[in-house]
């Protein structure tokens, strides 16, 4: 079994605590991410996928729970140097390549910002050499270094975003819907680039998305979130073959197929959370149905899922 890189334990992220409009964006979520793997996180808009990613990287202070990175608590009290070390190991790629690059900075400065802060280059020449190298790594060239973000297409900008993340030699990258804002033809290019970089540099990804077919393509394991909770977590193939939670089934039934005949006959499964009929003190938690396949259910549902499960 691969080594755990990240352990998320009972993570909670609430907003407007104590007010009538309190939101439980992430509510008691637990999962692990192993070194070198890609964990896909899917779910509808507003289910808490991005908030989970942002809480992991400390953009938000967690309301509760723990995030352990290489066994160290990310949200625990840390000295400046410890924080700096942590910030270098974990990077984030954002959804909108237009908004994620500072329009008033050149590409070289955007990429080199991390290099400067962590003192990874000796002198200006070395700094620029690293920038050129990173640009080439993501399929751009050194002529692009002195241009501004508005001079690039969406796909090129996302490549710049990836180069910026790679600049500090991270171990773990949170990709928050990195392809959602891109043209379909460019999406595959960016995903393939990410896969290539993962192979070459041994990176670990948390890939947040709602394009289920793309998530299946890139992910080793997939977690499904609904209303701030993780409802199912399984290896990618297993999830598509043996989805157990009704919400996962509903989500999978929404994947469009490039076949007019099957699209005409496709039946969309609707999910109704009330259909679970949980009793007041019934314990609902993640239960392991098969090795690595966890479903959020009650004991009664668990027994039911076991009988339905196809080996």
């Amino acid at each position, binding site marked *: 079994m691969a080594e755990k890189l990240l352990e998320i334990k009972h993570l909670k992220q609430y907003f407007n605590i104590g007010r009538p409009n309190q939101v439980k964006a992430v509510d008691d979520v637990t999962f692990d991410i192993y070194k070198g793997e890609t964990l896909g996180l899917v779910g509808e808009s507003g289910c808490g996928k991005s908030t989970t990613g942002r809480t992991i990287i400390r*953009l938000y202070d967690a309301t509760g729970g723990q995030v352990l990175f290489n066994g160290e608590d990310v949200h625990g009290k840390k000295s400046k140097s410890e924080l*700096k070390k*942590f*910030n270098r190991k*974990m990077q984030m790629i954002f959804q909108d390549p237009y*908004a994620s690059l500072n*329009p008033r900075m050149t590409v070289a400065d955007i990429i080199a*910002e991390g290099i400067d802060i962590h003192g990874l280059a000796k002198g200006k020449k070395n700094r620029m050499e690293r920038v050129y190298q990173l640009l080439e790594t993501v399929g751009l060239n050194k002529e692009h270094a002195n241009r501004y973000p508005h001079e690039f297409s969406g796909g090129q900008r996302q490549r710049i975003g990836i180069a910026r993340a790679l600049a*500090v030699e991270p171990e773990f990258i949170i990709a928050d819907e990195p392809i959602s804002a891109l043209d379909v033809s460019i999406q595959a290019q960016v995903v393939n680039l990410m896969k290539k970089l993962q192979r070459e540099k041994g990176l670990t990804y948390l890939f947040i998305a709602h394009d289920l077919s793309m998530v299946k393509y890139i992910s080793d394991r997939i977690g499904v979130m609904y209303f701030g909770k993780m409802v199912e977590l399984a290896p990618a193939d297993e999830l598509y073959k043996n989805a157990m939670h009704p919400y996962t089934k509903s989500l999978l039934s929404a994947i469009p197929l490039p076949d007019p005949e099957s699209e005409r006959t496709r039946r969309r499964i609707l999910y109704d959370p009330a259909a679970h009929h949980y009793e007041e003190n019934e314990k609902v938690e993640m239960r392991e149905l098969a090795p690595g396949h966890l479903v959020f259910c009650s004991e009664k549902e668990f027994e039911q899922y076991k009988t339905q499960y196809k080996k």
Partner: protein
Amino acid sequence: MKILQQVLFIFLLIIFLAAIPSIIEIDPAEKNISWNWSGLGKGIGDFMNEILNGSLGTYQIGNQIRYISDDIFGYFLTSFSILLAGVLSVIVIGLMLGIFLSQLRITRFIHMLLNVLSAIPDFILIIFSLVLAIKIYEVTGVRIIAFSPESGVLNIWFPMVLTAIAPTLYLFKLIAVQYYQTSAEDYIRTAVSKGMGTNYINFQHVYKNIEPFIIAELTKVVSLAIGNLFIIEYLLNVPGITKFIFQSNQFQPVAIGLFSMLLISFIIYMSIRFVLYIFKRGFIYE
């Protein structure tokens, strides 16, 4: 070519404004207003003659007739120093409260206060400040203002403060809105996720993106300050350039006064641009 057109247009506009008192005639017997366009030609002719003869002409204060050239330097300097100090404080306060100190709790309270004040028209704020200054003197005996031009600093510092009020409220609101908009951008989140400090983010990311808005609004800030200067110099009896405009309705001093005001606003605008440039070069990595 465009600049030449603009200069010509501004020149003609100032000439026309200066000529208005000599063009409009009121007939008290008939109780109507008549237009005397020949006054425009005569005024421009006299003005050009004086300038070409190397003289700025004369103006009248009460029963006294004085040479403009004798007083213009002092008046110019007074108006210029009031306006420069006022606009500089506007920029400094706007940037400090709007960006660099916006995280502090006390700044949030000041934000609220300034938001309330910005709903009050500027001339009411000026009159209210004058009343307040008088009340402070009545209660404590401390003199904050003086109406005599011979009072030195006492006659100057209060106008500087008053000149800055309305533009500060305007610029501060603009910067605060831009700050909140910019700080929600993904590149700021990226910077936060990289562990960069608030000051670094404010200088390198926020300021860089707000600066173009500040520069674009600078002309408006200067014009607001000049608008207030007219009221303040008149109310506080400050010996500034507006003396040429308010003390007489002759063509020559009004035209000279308006041209001087234009020159002052141009120098102030360029000085602030220079200060912002130095600030950027000094504090922000390019």
